[in-house]
Every structure is written in C-alpha cells, then in structure tokens.
C-alpha cells in the first residue's frame, strides 16, 4: 500500500508532496481552533494505538499488501473528527517512513493523500451521511462498513492512477486497478468489522470520548452481521461476473507479445499513445533527459562505447566504495572508540 519513491516520477511525487503539504498546513491551521489542549495527548496516543492494534489484528484474516494502519483512519475520523484524524494519520505515515523506512521520503505526499486524507474525509462524511441522525443500530453499522469499504477502495484506486501518471511501471492501468480494488475489497470488509467492533466497545465503556457522539448504538447484532454478509455476497457475485466479462481486457498482458504469432499486435505496450504522451511529459520535467532505448542493430559502435562507459561507472563506484570502507576500517582499528549504542 505504501507507495515507494521509485514507482513515482519526480513531477508526480513533487506535485503530490506540495499538495499534501499545503493541505496539511491548512488543516493544522484550521484544527488549531478545534483542538483543545486536552486533545493533544489523546491524538498522539490514538496514533500509537493504531500501530499497536496491528499486532493484535494479525489473527484476523490475512490482509495482503496493506499495512494495518489503514484500519485506523475511519475509526479515528469518527472518534476525533476528520481534521484531527487526518493530522494523526499523516503523522503515523511520516513516522512509518522516518523510523521504520516504510514508504519513500518523496512518496510521502502520495501516501498522505491516499491513506490519510482520503479515508479520513471520505470515510467520515460517508459515515455521517449513512448514519446521520438515525438512532438505529443497523444504519450506523452499515454506515461504518460503507465508510471503511469505500474509503479504502478510493485509496486503492488512487495508487494505480498515481503510478500510471508517473509512467514508471509498465503494468496496464486496468490490470493494476482490478488487482488493487480486488484485494482491498477484502481489506475493507475486515477493516469495517474491526472498526465496528472497537466502536461497539467504546460505546459500552467510554461513550464520552467520541467527538460528537456516536449516532445510535453500535452493536454487533447477529442480524446485522448476517445482513452484511448477504449484501457482500451479492456484491461479490455481481463483481465477479462483471470481472469475468472483462477478463480479456484484464489479462491482455499475458499475450501482449506472442512469439508464436509474429504478426500479433500487442494491445498494450509503450506504443500506447497515452503512455507515450506521459513519457514525453515526463522526460521534459525530469531533471535528466531520458535516452531512447536503442533497439537491435542500431548503431553498434555507439552502443559499444556506452557499454564501456557504464562498465567504468560500475567498477569505479564499487572500487570507491571499497576504498571508503577500507579507510574507515583502518581508522576505526587504530582508534577504537567505544560505541555508545544503547
């Protein structure tokens, strides 16, 4: 789920970073009026809670490709309100990047937009709409489920969009999209269940801490669970049949190039006009020019000289690194200072 630097191009990374930074600045300014000093510690601790909750979660159905902090976004938005939640989750993402090196430094913008802003705001407002002023169990329950599911799916849609805009990956947009939304559908359901469970617990023991009071009572009644499963079976069934009809599209990559049929025209390749346009845009706003890949037979001579330059580059670098290491080793041996590692 965490975008890495390498899957983004500089313009996309920079752009999202600026957007995320700007929005975050605005939110912070705005939130200053809403957030009382008593709430500061609560926000920080709830952020840490999301980290810790991942550990407890591991027994639940496996969630491939996601990090558990997704589980928190909607929950926090409901408890703290969307602004504070956006700030808390952004800080969770920054800590994941800076302490656990999960997600790249330049990809922070993308990650914050995908995993903090979108689930917090989309999720919160969906929840409010679905559960507004209704005191029925079921509606709140469905509101939370919908908020989690759609919040996460939106974020699952954003990842392939950003990647395609960047043009680094060759995976066709549709394939990437289908995979991501498929996987995150399951994740969303699990997230919904967990969120409802925690909310139900809070409702029981500490109803006072929720930002503007839960709408209705959240309780995992048997009927509600059954109803959800019924709805999801229908959705999954419908989704599957839809997917099946679009299969050739989704799987086109497997015969994008067919050696057994020399005349086969790949449907998707980098000849795709959209991708070429993006590519051109890319190289224009990149710091360095992209060089066109020289295909077979073209200008053997220049190819060879490039070969030697890159050879020199690689070996020169490796030698330099070895020398640096050696010098450091010798210095350290002659001057064994105690390391204050704790």
């Amino acid at each position, binding site marked *: 789920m965490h975008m890495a630097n390498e899957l983004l191009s500089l313009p996309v990374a920079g752009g999202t970073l600026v957007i995320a930074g700007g929005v975050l600045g605005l939110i912070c300014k705005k939130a200053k009026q809403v957030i009382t000093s008593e709430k500061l510690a609560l926000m920080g601790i709830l952020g840490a809670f999301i980290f810790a909750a991942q550990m407890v979660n591991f027994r639940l159905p496996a969630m491939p490709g996601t990090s558990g902090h997704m589980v928190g976004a909607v929950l926090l938005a409901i408890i703290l309100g969307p602004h504070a939640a956006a700030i808390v989750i952004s800080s969770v993402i920054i800590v994941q990047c800076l302490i656990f090196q999960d997600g790249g430094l330049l990809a922070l913008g993308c990650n914050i937009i995908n995993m903090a802003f979108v689930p917090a705001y989309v999720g919160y407002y969906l929840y409010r709409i679905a559960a507004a002023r209704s005191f029925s169990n079921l509606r709140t329950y469905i509101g939370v489920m919908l908020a989690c599911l759609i919040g996460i799916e939106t974020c699952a849609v954003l990842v392939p969009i950003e990647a395609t805009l960047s043009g680094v990956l060759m995976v066709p947009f549709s394939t990437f999209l289908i995979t991501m939304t498929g996987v995150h559908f399951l994740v969303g359901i699990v997230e919904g269940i967990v969120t409802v469970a925690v909310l139900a*617990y809070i409702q*029981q*023991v500490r109803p006072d801490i929720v930002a503007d009071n839960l709408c209705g009572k959240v309780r995992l009644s048997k009927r509600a669970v059954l109803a959800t499963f019924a709805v999801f079976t229908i959705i999954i069934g419908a989704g599957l049949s839809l997917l099946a009809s679009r299969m050739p599209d989704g799987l086109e990559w497997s015969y994008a190039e067919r050696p057994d049929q020399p005349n086969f025209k790949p449907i998707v390749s980098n000849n795709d006009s959209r991708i070429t346009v993006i590519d051109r845009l890319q190289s224009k706003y990149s710091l360095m020019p992209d060089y066109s890949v020289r295909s077979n037979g073209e200008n053997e001579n220049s190819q060879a000289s490039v070969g030697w330059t890159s050879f020199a580059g690689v070996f020169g670098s490796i030698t330099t690194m070895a020398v640096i290491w050696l010098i450091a080793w010798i210095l350290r041996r002659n001057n064994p200072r105690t390391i204050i*590692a*704790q």
Partner: protein
Amino acid sequence: MAKAIEIKSFSYKYPDGTVALNDINLSIEEKQKVVLIGPNGAGKSTLMLAMAGFAKGEGEIIVNGLKVEKKNLKKIRTVIGCCFENPDDQLFMPTLFDDVAFGPLNMGLDIEQVKIRVAQALRTVGMETMAEKAPHHLSAGQKRAAAIATILSMSPEIIALDEPDGSLDPRNREKLVVLLKNLPQTLVIATCNMNFAAALGDRAVLMDKGRIIADGDAKKIMFDAKLMTEYGLESPAMVV
C-alpha cells in the same frame, strides 16, 4: 522426585543485543516452592517468559518431561500457568468472569465445569462478588488478585508468578502468602520484596545480570547479609 522444570545452559538475548539470560542451569522438583530473587534487571521476568516458551534462546528447557519447542508449546501451556508482571496485560476480556473463564473454556471443559472452576478461583482470591465487573474498574490490588485467579482457574501443575506482590497492601499481600503457601502445585515466584520471598519459598534462586548467583535454602541465602547487600537486596526483616 520427578523434575517439574529443568533448564540446561540456557541463554537468551533480546533482539537489541541485551543478554538477559546467560548460561542458566536450574532444575526444580515437583511441588517445590521456589522464589527467584534479584535486583531490577536481573533477568527474572525473562526467565519466566522462557519457561513458558515465549523467549526462544540457546540451550534447553524441559517442562514436565517435555522439551520447550514449537510443537510442544500447546501442551506445555496446559502444564505451566504464567502470570506476568503487569496485571493489566493479563486481563483483556470485557468482564472479570470472561477473563477467568477464558482458560478453562479453551481447555475444552464443558460449561458447567467452567462455571464451577471460575467460582472456585474467584473465591480463592476473594473476588467472588466482582465477577461481572470490567477489569479496568478495579483497583490495582484487585487487578492483581484477578490476574492470579485467571491462572488458578486452569489449575496447572506449575504456577509461575512474576511479582505477584506488586502494588498490594500488606493485608492483601499476606492473604496472598497464605493462599500460595497452601497451593499443592509447584510454584515459581519472582519478586524483589525479600519479606514476601522469605514468607513463601523453601528454596531461593538469586539472580543478577542474567546469571544465577546462588541457589539453595531460602533462609540461608536471604539471611546472608553480605550476599544480599552485594546484589542490591536486603535481608528480610521478619518471617511473616
């Protein structure tokens, strides 16, 4: 007598490199009451974790004839019941009853039997009126008692308690001493309160810096003033 626990040159290192246990050799007979004493950071808690199979290190630990390793863990945990340092961590269900019933239910007992066991365990620690309370509404001492009840209800053959006397007032502590003294099971108790240790144990194991420093008769070790001061402890003031 049969051996309840046998530890053979066991060492354990935390992921950050701290050597918490260093070549531990210890064997505990059945029905013995052993107190683990030592200053803060000696490795008492870590040794408890290792006995229950939560700390996989070098060397061998054998509990009731079963080697502590992945495939035996389930069985070993029916044999040894551990109650760790912080009672808050021990109580994770919504009510005290659920918490005490959690173990017996998992043992596959039927409901009637579970209920009997829960009632018994709660009565033993004097909490029978609080079964329906939420654990986070209990006072510190009550939480401690409840945590011990969660172990008693499983009636394991070996009971291991880490600082069961922490944050208890003298009366509750004394109650605990009486309770523990009368238990028929093998008992391993870690504490740095010497009065409590002296009241409980027949045998004392003094640890420091991950090693066993002394092992033998509880009175003899604990009244060795020189030894105790050297390791930052004190002799018990009186035998309660």
